[in-house]
């Protein structure tokens, strides 16, 4: 079994807000992330897949194909977008790094031929990242 990781980058705006709470409660819990005008990050995505090496091609997956899948399923939907307003899954979920990792798992899972999705890692910044392994 080989683990293979492909990176991609996207730049997006977001803010944290729970409509069920008062503005004061949102401010208390989310701090400056609750600024309704939003703010943004350069996100780095790492998608790790697991699989056996094809004896003919020497590949676990075709990296170009994986790159195209990430571009089509994630980057084209997230890059230079406001996550809260323009990405459907964040109409109902707050676009935290944890929820972005879970959302990307759902977008990519079962779309990669010949390999199993192992981990989605999302860096909001170099010192903060979330991992999702598909666990319930």
């Amino acid at each position, binding site marked *: 079994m080989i683990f293979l990781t492909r990176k991609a980058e996207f730049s997006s705006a977001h803010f944290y807000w*729970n409509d069920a709470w008062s503005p004061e409660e949102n401010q208390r*819990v989310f701090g400056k992330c609750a600024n309704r005008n939003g703010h943004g990050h350069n996100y780095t995505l790492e998608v790790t897949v697991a699989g056996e090496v094809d004896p003919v091609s020497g590949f676990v997956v075709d990296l170009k194909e994986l790159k195209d899948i990430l571009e089509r399923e994630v980057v084209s939907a997230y890059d230079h977008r406001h996550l809260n307003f323009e990405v459907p899954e964040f109409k109902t979920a707050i676009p935290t790094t944890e*929820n972005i*990792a*879970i959302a990307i798992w759902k977008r990519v899972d079962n779309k990669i031929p010949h390999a199993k999705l192992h981990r989605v890692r999302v860096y909001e910044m170099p010192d903060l990242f*979330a*991992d*999702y*392994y598909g666990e319930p």
Partner: protein
Amino acid sequence: MKAHLSRRYHFSASHRLHTESYDAAQNTTVFGKCNNPHGHGHNYTVQITLSGQVDPATGMVCNLAELDAFAQTKLLEHFDHTNLNMLDCFRDTVSTTENLSIEIYRIFQRFTAAHLERVHVEETSNNSFDYSGDSAPAPGTI
């Protein structure tokens, strides 16, 4: 759904690798230039990995501001710009990054808002250490 959250912190400290269990020659042989009597220093990076269910109300494993406040008061204020050998935790143990990782694991076990998965400490860009308590980390999680 269960997710993992990792946060990196940075501090700078000096130390000297030395044990009273060895004589001077053995200390020099084992620890080399790290045994320099006047000590030396590093820019350490500490990466804390926590896991837990993502709270539907916040979208978070735990509140990052609470984690940062904990790290500030329990880690950085004790370790940053200090000589590690002068700290209580290294009175009887050598201030290697292995022992530092174990000590930092003990500290973050007291942060109870999420489950502590692992402590990863980089002494330099070429040396890093991981400690997950007594149990081995789950396959593929490092």
